[in-house]
């Protein structure tokens, strides 16, 4: 890996780390959800520090350049994270739907009760 790439990786990971911490403090991101991003940034830093290891692995796996291996790791990370997020949205969607039903049925029952009282 070139020294430029390593510097860029370190800067990017530090920036995203800071952003992540900031958002947690602003309560825009839950601590539990922030962990995955912290792991991501740590991964980037580790890869830039131990670039020799990255070069060794990428050569053994038959990559044209070590940077390709770095990209592959980051893309996999993003794909997994995207999939997990999608799953969470589906679960939330189901919860909101049930809440929607609960409110509607409750309102319906209350209305019927009032009608009965009125009569």
């Amino acid at each position, binding site marked *: 890996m070139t020294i430029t790439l390593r510097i860029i990786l370190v800067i990017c990971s530090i920036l995203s780390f800071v952003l992540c911490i900031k958002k947690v403090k602003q309560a825009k991101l839950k601590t539990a959800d922030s962990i995955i991003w912290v792991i991501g940034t740590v991964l980037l830093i580790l890869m830039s520090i131990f670039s020799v290891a990255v070069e060794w692995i990428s050569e053994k796996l038959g990559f044209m350049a070590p940077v390709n291996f770095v990209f592959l790791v980051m893309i996999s990370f993003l794909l997994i994270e995207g999939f997990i997020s999608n799953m969470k949205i589906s679960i939330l969607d*189901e919860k909101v739907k049930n809440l*929607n*039903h609960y409110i*509607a049925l409750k309102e319906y029952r209350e209305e019927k009760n009032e009608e009965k009282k009125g009569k």
Partner: protein
Amino acid sequence: MKVLIIVPAYNEALNIEKTINDLNNNAKEYDYVIINDCSKDNTKEVCEKNGFNMISLPINYGLTSGIQIGMKYALENGYDIAIQFDGDGQHQAKYLKQLVKEIEENNYDIAIGSRFVTQKKPKSIRMLGSNMIQLAMKLVTGKKITDPTSGMRAFNKKAMQEFVGNPSLTPEPDTIVYMMKKKMKVKEIQVEMSEREFGESYLNAFKSIEYMLSVMFSILFIRAFTKKGGK
């Protein structure tokens, strides 16, 4: 047996009165409930003015949610049969008795109002889609359903419980496949359906393709591998 007719309605202010009048005239021994899926027009006001029995959802959540809440209501209030009935005036209430009869007397779990049991299917792009779904269902279950996309379906208690208990089930053909895999008996009844008079169907060209893809995918790759259960 207590029968509940579930009428999902989204922006059906122009059709709902006619639909409910039809129900009151031709199926008055059955109860009905309108599920107002947070309509943007004055569906709610029209129903309130006429004193129709209506559950109003606070958030628009689509047809699946509408049918599900209808079935929840049916189960809560001890109904034995729930019938899905479109609020847009396409379905005719006079056929409901036959659907109920199949479940009550002939012990079927699900009865579907089909346009093509005795009638021939016309040739159109829409029916090509219908044929493709029919073929997929035949492949997966070995049984022939002539009008898989029909929205007029009657469910008994067992089918209702299955429907409410499994959030991945939608009121679409793939659910019929699921139910058949669960050893439920499905019967089709010849009915007539009219063209909708007002408003537009929720299926436009783009949505139709999306619909076909999701239904075919679900039948062939998800429902085909349903664990067999039931009797």
